[in-house]
């Protein structure tokens, strides 16, 4: 199934992740580093002026572009084709796979090099091409490591964040590596291994950080230079883009590239920001002759025109993953989706359905760190609540006990009589459970709480009674504000 990572039910995945101490340590230390770099390059960089103004600029551009997505996609495809490129609109995952397969077959291509791309992970493109007998090589260092180790990404920007150097070394040994576990030496090995492949590949496949509608250009953002390799030596370039990843013109590209580089890795710009425009390259030695652009919907349009549309503002910077305390403790694989973390918990149910991903919106304490970090102001934690609303309203299967409890809450929490009675009864009812001032083993709904935590004993004193006495002692008549605005003596 596309998008799916692993095959464990959610809670089993969580248990497995939590017990993987190395992974948790690796993720949390990476998070601390990335968070700090991001803050330094955003709110902490005074040369930028007010970072909030940048976020609003990003939001404004993304919202307008999405609201007129059909127009800008039309413009993009017209311009890409006018310069000789081939555009294919893929409504579904299968359509996207089939088109790429068709191109690869028509070129009789065997050796394919790829630069890092989340959308191709999402549509399981590698598997589809390998089934054709192609040799598909991931060239981003992290993706290369994962491919050699038959593993999947656990982060949108740093896909192998869950692996340590020993694991990388073990993986490379399968390719004949005999060096140390020094990152420098490991990277040098990857450089040597991959360079030959780049220079002799038939097809290069890339994702798309942003497309520019005005000129039909593709912008790719990397640090390693692998996307430059992929787009320079193979005869054919195939770029796969999520349909929302475009900007009207170069002017907007500036703002979004700035937001992306600073928010994802805390750099002013990544080492390579490369803008490719199809052109007649008959005389060009180092550039493809044939350009293909595959524009993928694959469920994205379901969010358009709904309360979930802001999710499509996402520019895949992963800033939300880098501040999420839940991601910090369970890593990416536990989400079971190629898109983990807060944005993953918002996107996955839209793209893959509630049956598969309906639990993800609950994997958040709604601390709003994600919303605060998002460079294009997606209200992530609010979208998580909206998913929960869908889930309980029929898209998912909430527990019956929970439904009853919430109904009862809805009634109880608007009846002052029931509330006051409850406050008086609680200390009496719970008294048998109280030992030494707290409850350490509670039944029913208290059980998961007291699994690892004590619950305080309900206060014996009633606050409202104290308050009346307190006012009387002070010589003030105990007053209250009534619903009609008048003040009267409290009863």
């Amino acid at each position, binding site marked *: 199934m596309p998008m799916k990572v692993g095959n464990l039910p959610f809670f089993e995945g*969580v248990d497995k992740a939590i017990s993987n101490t190395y992974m948790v340590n690796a993720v949390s230390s990476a998070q601390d580093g990335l968070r700090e770099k991001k803050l330094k390059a955003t709110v902490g960089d005074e040369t930028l002026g007010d970072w909030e103004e940048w976020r609003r600029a990003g939001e404004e551009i993304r919202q307008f572009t999405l609201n007129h997505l059909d127009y800008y996609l039309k413009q993009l495809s017209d311009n890409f084709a006018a310069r000789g490129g081939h555009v294919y609109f893929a409504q579904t995952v299968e359509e996207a796979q089939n088109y790429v397969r068709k191109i690869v077959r028509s070129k009789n291509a065997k050796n394919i090099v790829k630069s890092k791309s989340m959308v191709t992970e999402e549509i399981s493109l590698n598997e589809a091409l390998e089934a054709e007998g192609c040799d598909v090589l991931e060239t981003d260092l992290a993706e290369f490591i994962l491919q050699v180790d038959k593993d999947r990404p656990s982060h949108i920007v740093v896909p192998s964040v869950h692996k340590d150097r020993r694991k990388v070394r073990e993986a490379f040994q399968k390719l004949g590596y005999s060096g140390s576990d020094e990152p420098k030496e490991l990277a040098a090995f990857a450089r040597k291994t991959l360079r030959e492949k780049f220079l002799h590949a038939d097809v290069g496949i890339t994702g798309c950080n942003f497309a520019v509608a005005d000129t039909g250009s593709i912008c790719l953002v990397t640090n390693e230079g692998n996307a430059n390799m992929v787009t320079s030596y193979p005869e054919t370039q195939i770029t796969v883009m999520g349909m929302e990843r475009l900007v009207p013109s170069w002017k907007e590209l500036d703002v979004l590239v700035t937001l992306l580089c600073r928010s994802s890795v805390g750099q002013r710009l990544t080492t390579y920001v490369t803008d490719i425009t199809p052109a007649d390259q008959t005389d060009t030695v180092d550039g493809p002759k044939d350009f293909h652009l595959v524009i993928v919907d694959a469920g994205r349009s379901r969010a358009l025109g709904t309360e979930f549309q802001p999710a499509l503002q996402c520019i895949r910077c992963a800033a939300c993953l880098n501040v999420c305390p839940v991601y910090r403790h369970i890593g990416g694989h536990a989400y079971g989706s190629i898109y983990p973390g807060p944005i993953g918990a918002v996107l996955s149910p839209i793209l893959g359905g509630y049956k598969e991903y309906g639990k993800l919106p609950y994997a958040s304490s709604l601390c709003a760190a994600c919303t605060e970090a998002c460079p294009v102001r997606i209200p992530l934690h609010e979208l998580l609540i909206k998913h929960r609303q869908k889930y309980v309203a029929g898209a998912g299967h909430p527990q019956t006990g929970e439904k009853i409890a919430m109904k009862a809450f809805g009634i109880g929490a608007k009846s002052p009589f029931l509330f006051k009675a409850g406050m008086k009864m609680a200390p009496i009812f719970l008294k048998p459970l109280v030992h030494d001032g707290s409850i350490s083993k509670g039944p029913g709904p208290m059980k998961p709480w007291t699994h*690892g*935590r004590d619950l305080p004993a309900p*206060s014996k004193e009633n*606050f409202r009674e*104290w308050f009346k006495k307190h006012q009387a002692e002070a010589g003030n008549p105990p007053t209250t504000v009534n619903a009609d605005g008048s003040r009267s003596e409290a009863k």
Partner: protein
Amino acid sequence: MKVSLFTTCLGELFYVDVLKDTTEVLERLGCEVDVPEGQICCGQPSYNSGYKKESIGPAKHMIETFENADYIVSPSGSCTSMFREYPKIFADEPEWAERAKRIAEKTYEFTSFIVNVLGVEDVGAEFHARVTLHTSCHMTRLLGERDSHYRLLSHVKGLELVKLPNNYDCCGFGGTFSVKMTPISEQMVDEKIRHIEETKAEVLVGADASCLMNIGGRMRRLGKPVKVMHIAQILNSHQEEEAAHHANESRKSTVL
């Protein structure tokens, strides 16, 4: 200044002492405090769990109850933020949205009210201890209140404030999250406790009873010696240095 106290359900159930301290501090600062009788719960537990329909009734009830208050003050950043969210909840009911907006505009979290409305930073408290502060998520991110609690604590005589590492990370409470996603919640609170221990503080202070119930409940289970207090309890303290270590009989013995 007339202040209507929004007690919060958690406050009335578990933390009556915190409500008393809140009342006394506000009164000492010259406020006339009342406790609107009809108030119950803001509806956040059901709203955040996706039960919007079930939350509308409680929210409307609270709006009616507090509608005529001059200022609404609550010793909880999270519950205050729910009042501030009300206008969004009623996006489909313009009349209620308007009423919700008026409520939201006059609702303040306790420390924020003291610093930003009353303009007071030194409340004349005295408390001798090494203290670290948990800045709760809804307080900092939803209310945008990032320094009133620091300012107030910095003026408490005898109090040594130590910065809590990774203070921006959630403690793992998250309302129903803590019982629906217990394994993750426990990992989160354990990391929070590791950071608290790194500060070597004797007391953990916070301005949200829910977070403190979570961190305190876990520390108690693990037998950690750190005392947990609400900021209202500190601000209502006037203990002399000698008395600081014999305060077990006082109100501060509340299990948070």
